[in-house]
């Protein structure tokens, strides 16, 4: 039995189960970070997490909060329905890139445009993880996926979509930021930003959009460490990590 002061321990809201994500996956990490923030705000009993179609579909098996499982792309509409009925609950729409920018683009934009007081956590891993690594709206030009075997060709597939930049054209959103979780330092920064976003929701400030440049070691065919390096060296060149808007600081 080890005793002493605990410097770090698993957050209470993260259930004591093995998450089924692949080793080193950013989904695991962000599930954990979300739980840390929920614990720190002590909002476990009033938080609702929308589980999207994608690798995070079983989110509620790990995060011990009320949860609604959405159809592919519809999480922000469900979040809207919940928030309009229960404005004092904390609603988090957690979505992948296929979910948020492809099949759910309309819901994404219009929920942001209405300025719904929710927090969107956008896991951008540049592929469709769950279905085995097909092209996503955020797949980089030249990036090889299951459905772009010679690399994404803009002539045929168009260019990767920058979500934060798109959302940033709208009037209503309160807080828009792109983050990465490639090492402990950037994880701490990301946590600070996401915590701020959820704090804004608690204080009824409005809509926040937090994009996380995420890895998918499995479908990228890389070791977790190399996948984080790729985010650092390649992905974040096209998707700059920064705060796009913070009405709370303006």
């Amino acid at each position, binding site marked *: 039995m080890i005793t*002493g002061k605990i*410097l*770090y*321990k698993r957050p209470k809201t993260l259930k004591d189960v*093995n998450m089924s994500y692949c*080793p080193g996956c950013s989904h695991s990490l962000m599930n954990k970070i979300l739980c840390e923030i929920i614990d720190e705000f002590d909002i476990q009993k009033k938080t609702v997490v929308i589980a999207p179609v994608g690798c995070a579909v079983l989110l509620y098996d790990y995060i011990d909060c009320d949860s609604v499982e959405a159809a592919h792309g519809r999480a922000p509409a469900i979040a809207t329905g919940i928030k309009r009925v229960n404005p004092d609950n904390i609603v988090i729409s957690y979505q992948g890139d296929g979910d948020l920018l492809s099949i759910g683009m309309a819901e994404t934009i219009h929920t942001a445009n209405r300025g719904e007081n929710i927090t969107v956590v956008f896991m951008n891993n540049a592929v469709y993880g769950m279905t085995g690594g097909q092209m996503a709206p955020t797949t980089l030009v030249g990036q090889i996926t299951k459905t772009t075997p010679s690399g994404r060709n803009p002539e045929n597939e168009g260019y990767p979509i920058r979500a934060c930049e798109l959302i940033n054209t709208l009037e209503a959103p309160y807080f828009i930021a792109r983050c990465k979780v490639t090492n402990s330092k950037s994880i701490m920064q990301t946590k600070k930003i996401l915590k701020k976003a959820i704090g804004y929701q608690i204080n009824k400030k409005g809509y926040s959009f937090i994009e996380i440049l995420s890895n998918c070691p499995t479908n990228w065919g890389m*070791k977790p460490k190399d996948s984080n390096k790729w985010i650092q060296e390649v992905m974040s060149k096209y998707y700059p990590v920064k705060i796009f808007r913070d009405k709370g600081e303006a």
Partner: protein
Amino acid sequence: MNKKNNPVINTDKCKGCELCVSECPVEIIAISDEINIMGYHPAYITDSTKCTGCIKCAISCPDAVITVYREE
């Protein structure tokens, strides 16, 4: 440094992703040759006496299987 830090890895639940290994500033985390019940090579602490208690390993562990203690 008189306080002793104690990083503990739950090896049964470690997925051997190695992300903690490169985080440790004093390089006391390594990957084991053994295989855990999930079929992964888990991380282990080579020399806990050197641990600074910086918790970088725990922060970067996606599966939250590292706990860091400090003996009072």
